[in-house]
């Protein structure tokens, strides 16, 4: 495992000796003429909290259903601990799933829902009670064991679903939009709870979500998917800081994209000529972008500084006028219109009272950023 800053960091994907628990080998899945998964290769390691992120219809749910055994790949192999599991039916897999709708059995109590899987396993009757009790404690549901699913709240139902899918101690737990039905505040609490439970049980989690914030919060690695392909797999910070494409940059968080032509200034720096009569943008060279070809410059709004006077020490400085201000309390986003007509978003923290802000609508301002603030992308 990798070592960073002398601290033990969990990063099995960087260790060439580490064996993945799940390996997708060139998997394709077609439904009729529609290709849901397109020649996908992916490794997931034990104890990972792996997020599949993408818009609806990108194939993330199909991928998960193949892991659960509800779908079989049209081509390619899915291996678990080195063994092909394509022919193993869902009820014989050491994989459990937490369904988006929770799929709690309405005719059973919370206790019986959690015990359902255990009763189908060879576990002796005497041990089942102990295991269910353990699950009830883990999810703080002891007081509701005797209730039926329609007698508890949405958040409690979600925890029952989690407890039920964890009860059999699966090697791999699949979570399909586990927090989709919860309101925002509850969702945030639940995310941390989920991470806590994942750490306590040491189970490998694969979560499907379309909420990028959720994926960033809980996951050790995030796979961004689009049209049946994985566009990028990386840790949340790398996905955010160094997206490999405009698609990823745009999907994760807010971003300014400026189109231009790349021209190498040195090995380290590249200029982007993006408009007639404007100084080029200077950014860190991306080896994938060939000298002299069209490219995109992506920069996050919070990395763009905004000031009423021209800053003297910045690598990139552009003038513009304030078009719009989105006041979000702790931060404000300024939509700044450049002379070329392009709109660049800049974000600042509101560390002063709003009345003391030195610029407002239609004021001339200067945008600036360093040469390492953004990324240069080929596509």
């Amino acid at each position, binding site marked *: 495992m990798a070592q960073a800053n002398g601290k033990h960091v969990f990063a099995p994907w960087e260790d060439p000796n580490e064996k993945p628990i799940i390996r997708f080998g060139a998997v394709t899945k077609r439904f009729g003429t529609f290709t849901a998964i397109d020649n996908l290769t992916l490794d997931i390691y034990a104890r990972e909290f792996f997020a599949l992120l993408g818009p609806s219809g990108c194939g993330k749910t199909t991928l998960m259903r193949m892991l659960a055994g509800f779908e079989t790949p049209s081509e390619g192999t899915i291996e678990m601990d080195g063994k092909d599991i394509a022919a193993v039916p869902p*009820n014989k897999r050491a*994989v*459990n799933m937490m*369904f988006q*709708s929770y799929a709690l059995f*309405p005719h059973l109590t919370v206790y019986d829902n959690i015990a359902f*899987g255990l009763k*189908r396993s060879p576990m002796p009757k005497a041990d089942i009670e102990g295991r269910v009790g353990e699950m009830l404690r883990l999810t703080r549901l002891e007081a509701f064991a005797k209730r039926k699913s*329609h007698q508890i709240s949405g958040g409690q139902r979600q925890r029952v679903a989690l407890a039920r899918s964890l009860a*059999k101690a699966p090697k791999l737990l699949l979570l399909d939009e586990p927090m989709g039905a919860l309101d925002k505040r509850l969702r945030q609490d639940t995310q941390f709870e989920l991470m806590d439970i994942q750490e306590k049980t040491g189970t490998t989690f694969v979560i499907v979500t379309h909420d990028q914030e959720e994926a960033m919060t809980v996951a050790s690695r995030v796979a961004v998917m689009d049209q049946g392909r994985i566009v990028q797999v990386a840790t949340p910070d790398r996905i955010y800081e160094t997206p490999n494409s405009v698609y990823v940059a745009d999907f994760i968080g807010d971003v300014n994209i400026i189109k231009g032509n790349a021209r190498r200034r040195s090995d380290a720096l590249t200029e982007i000529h993006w408009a007639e009569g404007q100084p080029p943008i200077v950014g860190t060279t991306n080896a994938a972008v060939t000298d002299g070809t069209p490219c995109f410059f992506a920069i996050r709004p919070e990395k763009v500084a905004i000031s009423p006077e021209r800053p003297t020490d910045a690598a990139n400085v552009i003038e513009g006028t304030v078009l719009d201000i989105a006041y979000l309390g702790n931060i404000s986003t300024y939509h700044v219109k450049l002379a070329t007509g392009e709109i660049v978003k800049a974000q600042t923290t509101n560390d002063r009272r709003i009345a003391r802000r030195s610029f407002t609508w239609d004021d001339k301002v200067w945008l600036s950023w360093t040469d390492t603030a953004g990324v240069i992308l080929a596509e």
Partner: protein
Amino acid sequence: MNFRRLFLILVPCLWLLALFLVPFGIVLKISLSDIALAIPPYTPTLDLAAGWEGVRRFFSGLDFENYQFLTQDDLYWRAYLSSLKIAAISTLATLIVGYPIAYGMARAPREWQPLLMMLVILPFWTSFLIRVYSWIGILSQEGYLNQLLLGLGLIDQPLMIINTNWAVYIGIVYTYLPFMVLPIYAALEKLDGSLLEAAEDLGCSRTSAFWLVTVPLSKAGIIAGSFLVFIPALGEFVIPSLLGGSKTLMIGKVLWEEFFSNRDWPVASTVAVILLLIMVIPIILFQRNEQKQREMNQ
């Protein structure tokens, strides 16, 4: 209590009063009377012209003689028990035939379901009597069924189906099948497919998922359908008299014979009152099931 609400309650109350309680009162009164060679064929009748004395004479003429008579002649007890048995067996048979149909309908592609529903209801468009008569043509000794089985060489002798309890079972199952299929279909149609996937995911085979999830979740439909078949089958008259022949003993037939052959209205009414009392139990159970279901859905 405002007037509009009172009016809304009043309408069904009057309806029940006029079409259920009053006729029941009349039948109950006749069951307490004695047979007489007169028009109407029972006594006493209320003679309002005689004033208070007439009313007194009317009530003193009523007694429970007919109820005692029913306990003395074992024909009636046997008829009640036989009806219960036939109704119970046919209900079970209807369930066994109806459940797979309802299951198939609920599992069929969405766009097919209205058509399948139509096909289940379609027989109601023809007269019930004609449909039962046509079963005579199918089940009789020279009927289509025997011809088919003889033609296929499966049997050497024609089967004796008509005029046995078998024919009655077939007739009841056929007639009441939609009453079983529709409530079960309604329950299965609501069933969330992810529940079955969850059961499989937790280690169930397809078969055990069916018994542990599908069947318990369609329980309300099974109960509703069973009562909808059992209650009318208990008092069934047309099917046993057309298909069952003389040996089939059912209380509906006994009632008919008392009324039209013996012209013994008081005994016929007694048979009817007791039949109603027997049916009250399953009807109450049925209502309780419906009530519980409504509470679950809230």
